[in-house]
């Protein structure tokens, strides 16, 4: 009985909310996969939302939304309650976003890291994080004394494999003896496990630690052990001031503000965005002075060249582990190939988990 009572109460609240919202001004909704306090992926999206809010546009967000059926419910709820533009910020929201978009042709949808744009009101966007990895690889190749780079990987998806490859190619270029050791932890964040993985890699002789997971535990472990490390997703320098050489920073704010204003002013149109260093969606944290002035200068130049397009992270000749050619000499990998990358390049050890 009480259960029913609560159901009525909740529906009443939602109806109330609906009737109020339908007259309200332009509103943007955000759906997050993690808590805003993860200090990684979701944290950076939330920073982007704050920027939209600062630009004078009303926003709401729902955090820790599991990918799957729950996501569809949340997205639908946002669309129903008068949101004009909805950012869905995780790969797993791809199908739910498209499904809801079909029923709400007047609402605009922006899906992060996906590739499906089944309806004209769905755009997709992502960042070329691999450009950042190229810089990390260059630095790592120069800084390592043991010629061993430790890489903490999360899940075997193209995004992660692309990062490993970009880093390895850049490191090989400056240091042909480089070895990349990879540990898969099968989680986006579990500080304990990430710390253990970092420690294992350090014990195995890695003196540069790199991560594609979200917590700050690996850089802290590196700091304790006195080896080099790189921050991930946000500037993690204050967690390991001595150890961190630089961080890859996801900066969604300019894109979010631009798209929100476009939607408000009626100039929004469907697009597929893949921005990198050039547009500032991928940014680098401050370079550690321990790198030495020469290397900092070199890396800053490389960063400029990557941004201007003079240098591409995947420039041929690139071979896979068996020695088959992936990208011919003088060519660069096209976006289609990058988006679907599922093999290691030559020089990476081990197999990709299936």
């Amino acid at each position, binding site marked *: 009985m009480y259960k029913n009572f609560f159901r009525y109460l909740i529906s009443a609240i939602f109806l109330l909310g609906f009737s109020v919202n339908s007259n309200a001004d332009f509103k943007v909704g955000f759906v997050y996969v*993690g*808590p805003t*306090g*993860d*200090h990684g992926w979701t*944290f950076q999206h939330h920073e982007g939302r704050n920027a939209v809010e600062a630009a004078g546009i009303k926003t709401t967000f729902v955090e820790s939304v599991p990918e799957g059926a729950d996501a569809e419910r949340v997205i639908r709820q946002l669309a129903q309650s008068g949101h004009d533009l909805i950012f869905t910020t995780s790969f797993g929201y791809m199908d739910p976003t498209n499904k809801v978009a079909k029923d709400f042709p007047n609402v605009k949808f922006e899906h992060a890291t996906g590739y499906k744009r089944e309806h004209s009101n769905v755009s997709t966007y992502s960042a070329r994080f691999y450009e950042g990895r190229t810089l990390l690889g260059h630095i790592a190749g120069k800084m390592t004394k043991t010629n061993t780079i*430790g890489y903490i990987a999360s899940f075997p998806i193209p995004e992660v494999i692309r990062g490993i490859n970009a880093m390895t190619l850049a490191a090989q270029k400056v240091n042909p003896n480089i070895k990349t*050791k*990879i*540990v*898969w*932890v*099968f*989680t986006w*964040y*579990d*500080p*304990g*496990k*990430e*710390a*253990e*993985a970092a*420690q*294992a*890699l350090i*014990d*195995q*002789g*890695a003196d540069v630690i790199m991560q594609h997971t979200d*917590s*700050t*535990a690996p850089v*802290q*472990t590196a700091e304790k052990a006195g080896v080099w490390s790189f921050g991930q997703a946000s500037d993690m320098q*204050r*967690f390991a001031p001595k150890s961190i050489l630089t961080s890859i920073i996801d900066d969604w704010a300019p894109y979010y503000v631009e798209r929100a204003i476009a939607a408000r002013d009626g100039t929004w149109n469907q697009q597929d965005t893949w921005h990198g260093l050039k547009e500032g969606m991928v940014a680098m944290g401050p370079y550690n002075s321990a790198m030495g002035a020469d290397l900092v200068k070199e890396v800053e130049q490389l960063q400029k060249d990557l941004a201007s397009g003079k240098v591409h992270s995947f420039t041929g000749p690139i071979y896979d582990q068996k020695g088959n050619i992936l990208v011919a000499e003088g060519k660069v990998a096209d976006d289609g190939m990058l988006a679907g990358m599922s093999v290691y390049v030559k020089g990476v*050890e*081990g*197999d990709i*988990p*299936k």
Partner: protein
Amino acid sequence: MSLDISFIGILIGSIMASSVPLILAASGELITERSGVLNLGVEGMMIIGAISGFALMVITDNLFIAILGSMLSGVIISLIFGFLTQSLLTNHVATGLALTIFGIGLSAMLGKNFVGIPGKEFPILFLSLRESIPFFGPILFGHSIVLYFAFALPFLTNYFLKKTKLGLVVRAVGDSPVSASNQGINVILVRYCCILYGGAMCGLAGAYLSLIYTPQWIENMTAGRGWIALALVVFATWSPIKVLIGALIFGGITILQLHMQAIGFRIPVQFLSALPYLMTIIVLVVISRDSRKIKLNTPTSLGRIFYKEK
């Protein structure tokens, strides 16, 4: 890579460090369960301990207060469980689950302002001995005080349950609350104490994560260790020493599988990731095969509601 003797020493040292939260939480839960109370809120109490410890460290800048406060917060939150199950006679399983969900939510709320603050370095004992003695150095020295306490705890717990009068009282209450009550033992009071003790140990386990192991606060940072501790208690058939063995196996294989990956063993990674769970269960089941002993250790009235007829 190099499998020399000092490397193995370092390896054992890091295995010990990784099993500490499991030992603490499982030892606490073991006492609670031996008194006949099944508290599934271990994960919730741990995460509350983790945020309380970290928050107090940031506010007071005093690690001693932080550790003490984390245990106290574990006591407070377990008191809710105690009041519900012992005074209001609610179902243990449902209340425990609610406690975990509540704990995770509450910790996230409390922790909002503590995200992104680096932790403080926790003092490490006998650091010079750790480096000067090969093999035994990294195993015996260079740890935090909490680690030494954790490794003493299962033996103390064993002694307490088997050799002291109070231990006997706890076991009596867990096995047959009605007879214990008839003997003049205040069953509810004993169970309250055991619940609160379990809460304190879980709080400490959480603080070990947020203050010592990975000094920082991140939402949901216990990442399921509370559930593993709960499972350990059952598979160790409520024996404190077997809890210690189980925690070490779990921690050990977790670390070893990471090393095997780094070395480049051609074993599917998913299998390696599942290995800690699998091996811990197998080993504990094998070493606890004696059904007579299992019967002896299992608290007969576990999870059953007791009320005194007046």
